[in-house]
């Protein structure tokens, strides 16, 4: 990628670029050998924005309290395997608050007893979390 040096004041950048430079593709703008920005030909920019629009929305971030329960589950796993192996457990505030043999039934117990608390519900199994397959393919038209 070609590069061009810029000069600056506290408020403005100044760049002098030949008209023909844009035809050569992206131009890296540098100040004191540090990259500041990239100048794109409009066709490259339009390609980029089209690509950006096609990206799926970002998944929601993992809530920190949920992540803490997952971490507690992993930490407790050796003990859980001994005591609850083959069962489902709900972990809340780092401890087991419900058990059963069906994840949604365990969620029901938690909702009944504790309300909508952020817990982690998982099978106590050496290979958990379980694997699910989406073998379908959608053709984008």
């Amino acid at each position, binding site marked *: 990628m070609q590069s061009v040096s810029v000069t600056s004041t506290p408020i403005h950048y100044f760049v002098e670029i030949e008209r023909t430079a844009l035809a050569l593709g992206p131009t890296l703008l540098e100040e004191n050998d540090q990259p500041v920005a990239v100048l794109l030909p409009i066709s490259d920019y339009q390609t980029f924005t089209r690509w950006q629009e096609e990206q799926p929305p970002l*998944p929601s971030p993992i809530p920190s309290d949920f992540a803490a329960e997952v971490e507690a589950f992993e930490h407790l796993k050796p003990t859980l395997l001994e005591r609850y192996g083959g069962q489902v457990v709900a972990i809340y505030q780092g401890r087991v608050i419900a058990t059963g043999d069906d*994840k949604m039934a365990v*969620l029901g117990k938690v*909702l009944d007893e504790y309300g909508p608390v952020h817990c982690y519900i998982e099978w106590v199994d050496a290979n958990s979390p*379980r*694997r*699910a397959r*989406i*073998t*379908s393919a959608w053709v984008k038209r």
Partner: protein
Amino acid sequence: MNSYDSRHQPSAPVLNVTAASVVNRRRRRSLSALLDTGSDITAIPHGLVDSLQLYPVGQLQLESVEASTRAVLTYAIQLTIGELSIPRLEVILTGLDFVVVGRDVLNRLYLLLNGPEQNFDLRTTSFFAAPIVE
């Protein structure tokens, strides 16, 4: 009988379902849903996390058609599809704008796909009458 949806190419069995919060059932949304026997698990659009105020309850390893695997969070919803209402169903999220109904739900129903005539039937009871025992 429901008609196939020609917005999918090839056309596909699609019908409306209702997804609701398991905590507050007044939080609900009616959405278009693709019946997908290739999916182990049902998926709902990302936007429902905010509109139904869902929170994660678990996670699983999701394997795609390319056989690549990644960890995803799971959520619980109440799902109503045809005459069937499932009070608590574990689902994953999809970037698609429709629900993908997997075999976790379809295996609780009788589904008759009539591809040549572009229609399908979905029931909670068998299509075949029980034999009369005399």
